[in-house]
């Protein structure tokens, strides 16, 4: 078996089929990055997976999952000003968490260099919005590389490190979901281990304290570096030129979508692709605009390039017709080949035909995501959906438990961001004496951003119930560890002098009574509803070679009350053509969390089977 951890640290050069995220790790190794930090979030967690696949003694850099993205960024910053090249990576909305410290970076002399890898999520595949983080670049004077495929993710990472060290400047490598997961055979270079040095020298490289007159000094430094970055960006322009009247300016993955849909018309339009999208390569853009009568700006999400390119054209008195975004739809969703085809067709219908809906298609049934079989969150949602009236209020947070908002539980009616639930619930409980308020919070999020809201609820004496859904891992993003491994949540809550704390395993029959008691207690109360993540548990069980376990069966006692399907809703319960309930044996993990929910007691374990037995 090929072990990716061994492959990544070999001397090279070599080539291997990998995704963009994995290619970054080889980039870190070759370029001598010393400190890497992160908080897990899609589409970037595979960077950590590849990192962790390298045995620690062979891994040439330090890695940690930090409490949240901001702390991760600060650890990487501290390493960099001490002369160690660093890299921090996180998902799109992680940018909001880091913002307070991130906006300061460009004013600092980062002597070791520092690369900020962000995974934007056009299409919101796994995020609560599709925010365009390019805006943060302008806000903070930070340059941005934008690769188009896995090979370029690796290549641009190396360049990002090189220039970052040279200019002692932060740099963003901006991935989107499908460049992060772009899979192809990537050609890697040679790895020659280098000695590192460490030296934090504030007198020599400072100031590092942005107070008073220092601020102008530091800001000037950032802006002067940005001028140099503009020159560098001229080295990352890529042309398709056939001397056409029409041209497209684009970047990243939408460029490949464009090539895909142009097909035989590929030589009827010129293309300028930008490898650095902030600051822009002004001279190349002026030249391209002047050489064409019409130019289409093809960019995913917001009109970031469009605004700047139009202002360049205005300043230079260029009369080229510039086509930007035409309607709201152009601002929404991922620029897949299908989408790009439709966008180009709106401007130049002779180049691309608008994709028609398939003339006939087969009926499909939507498949909303759901909690896994055996999930410890399910009993909590089941119980809450019984205890809360339609009038009561439930506040969701981020994690697997967000899925409670879906049918049939409908627990969780409002969501902002990581850890918002306690603050939002506090506000909802004001001037409200008749409706119960329940906030939900995951255990990883408890540490990430949940603590300030909890402390606030204690300090300001708010009246609501917080249910901490403790499954012992950061499950949604692939089971990364979190501080709960060493710090007990209950002890922290007790230290905050919270009077009403209950702790209960969610498989336990007194779950309902416990939750009910907490709901009926005035003031701020907390239920720690624990059960280990069963997806993680079943995977570990399989690794031990345990494949067949006794599963549940629906006995003849079944009266078709349908509670297991319509209220408890474990996906393993299905109905056959005659409406009879049965257990889908592909899915049941034999956890037994459903046993108590059947009013007629029809759910029982089947007899234990030996491996290889017929189902």
């Amino acid at each position: 078996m090929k072990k990716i951890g061994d492959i990544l640290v070999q001397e090279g050069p070599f080539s291997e089929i990998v995704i963009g995220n994995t290619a970054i790790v080889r980039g870190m190794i070759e370029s001598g990055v010393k400190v890497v930090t992160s908080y897990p979030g899609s589409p970037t967690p595979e960077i950590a997976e590849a990192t962790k696949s390298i045995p620690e003694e062979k891994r040439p850099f330090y890695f940690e999952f930090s409490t949240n993205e901001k702390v991760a960024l600060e650890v990487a910053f501290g390493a960099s000003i001490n002369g160690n090249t660093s890299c921090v990576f996180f998902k799109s909305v992680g940018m909001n968490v880091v913002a307070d410290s991130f906006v300061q970076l460009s004013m600092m002399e980062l002597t070791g260099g520092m690369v900020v890898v962000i995974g934007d999520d056009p299409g919101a595949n796994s995020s609560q919005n599709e925010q365009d983080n390019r805006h943060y670049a302008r806000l903070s004077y930070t340059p941005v590389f934008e690769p188009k495929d896995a090979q370029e993710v690796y290549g641009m990472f190396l360049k990002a490190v090189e220039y970052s060290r040279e200019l002692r400047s932060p740099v963003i490598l901006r991935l989107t979901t499908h460049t992060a997961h772009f899979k192809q055979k990537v050609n890697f270079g040679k790895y020659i281990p280098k000695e590192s040095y460490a030296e934090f020298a504030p007198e020599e490289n400072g100031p590092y304290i942005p107070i008073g007159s220092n601020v102008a000094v530091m800001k000037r430094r950032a802006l002067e570096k940005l001028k140099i970055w503009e020159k560098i960006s001229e080295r990352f322009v890529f042309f398709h030129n056939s001397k056409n009247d029409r041209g497209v300016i684009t970047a990243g993955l939408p460029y490949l979508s464009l090539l895909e849909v142009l097909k035989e018309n590929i030589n009827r339009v010129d293309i300028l692709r930008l490898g650095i999208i902030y600051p822009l390569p002004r001279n190349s853009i002026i030249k391209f605009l002047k050489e064409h009568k019409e130019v289409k700006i093809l960019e995913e999400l917001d009109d970031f390039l469009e605004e700047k390119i139009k202002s360049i054209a205005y300043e230079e008195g260029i009369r080229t017709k510039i086509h930007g975004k035409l309607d709201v739809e152009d601002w929404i969703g991922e620029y897949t080949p299908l989408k790009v085809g439709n966008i180009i067709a709106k401007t130049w219908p002779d180049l691309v035909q608008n994709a028609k809906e398939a003339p006939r298609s087969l009926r499909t049934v939507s498949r909303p995501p759901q909690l896994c079989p055996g999930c410890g969150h399910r009993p909590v949602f089941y119980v809450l959906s019984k205890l809360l009236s339609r009038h009561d209020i439930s506040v969701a947070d981020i994690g697997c438990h967000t899925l409670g908002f879906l049918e049939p539980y409908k627990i969780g009616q409002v969501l902002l961001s990581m850890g918002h639930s306690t603050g939002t619930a506090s506000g909802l409980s004001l001037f409200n004496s008749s409706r119960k308020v329940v906030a939900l919070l995951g255990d990883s999020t408890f540490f990430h951003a949940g603590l300030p809201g909890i402390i606030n609820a204690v300090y300001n004496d708010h009246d609501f119930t917080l249910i901490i859904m403790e499954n012992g891992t950061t499950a949604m993003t692939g089971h990364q560890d979190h501080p709960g491994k060493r710090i007990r949540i209950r002890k922290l809550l007790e230290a905050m002098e919270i009077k009403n704390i209950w702790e209960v395993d969610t498989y336990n029959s007194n779950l309902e009574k416990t939750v009910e008691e907490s709901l009926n207690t005035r003031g701020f109360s907390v239920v720690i509803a624990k059960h280990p993540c069963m997806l993680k548990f079943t995977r570990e069980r399989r690794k031990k070679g345990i494949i067949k376990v006794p599963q549940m069966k629906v006995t003849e006692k079944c009266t078709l009350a349908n509670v297991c399907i319509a209220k408890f809703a474990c996906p393993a319960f299905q109905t056959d053509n005659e409406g009879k309930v049965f257990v889908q044996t592909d899915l049941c993990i034999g956890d037994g969390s459903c046993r108590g929910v059947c009013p007629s007691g029809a759910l029982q374990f089947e007899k234990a089977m030996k491996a290889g037995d017929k189902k």
Partner: protein
Amino acid sequence: MKFDVFIIGVGGQGIGMLSELLMRAIDYSGQRCVGVDTHGLAQRGGVVSSHIRIGEAFSPMVVPGEVDLVLALERHEAARGINFLKKGGTLVYYDTSWQPLPVRLGKEKEISNEEIERFSLENDVKVYRIRYKLPDVRMQNMALLANVVKNKLIPSLNFNHCLKAMEDLMTGDILKINQEFFLKTVNE
């Protein structure tokens, strides 16, 4: 030459492994390929898909209506996948039903094999419906892979390329069990 494969199923069915195996096998067959998996909520019982593009392709993502081969690990997903096929394309699906919530709640009817069959006849789609007695449900993906090779559904791809790909990604008993089942199924 361009040949598009679209793989679709439910989170937890081993779509990632199937896609990784296929890409490596295609690489061993000497053909260029690019691809992408959908991740995100993948493990939470939602739809998971993977795109593999062989030959002259730019984007890692297929264009709906232009796909040559769809591999589906489940019946409802076969229905979703068949709509990605071009005229004259091929669908291979594993005939198991992991009922989506609207079906379980009785709001919609389960997709039937007859529906898929009827649609494929009307739309010039070749369909292979497969189902095996497996020692482990997690081997449904291997059954699909074996049927791709057995019926020569991907140009230039043979069983040796797949065996080598398996050696890249598996070890010990798991490798042995999967290779044995794969070969047995190919030669049936």
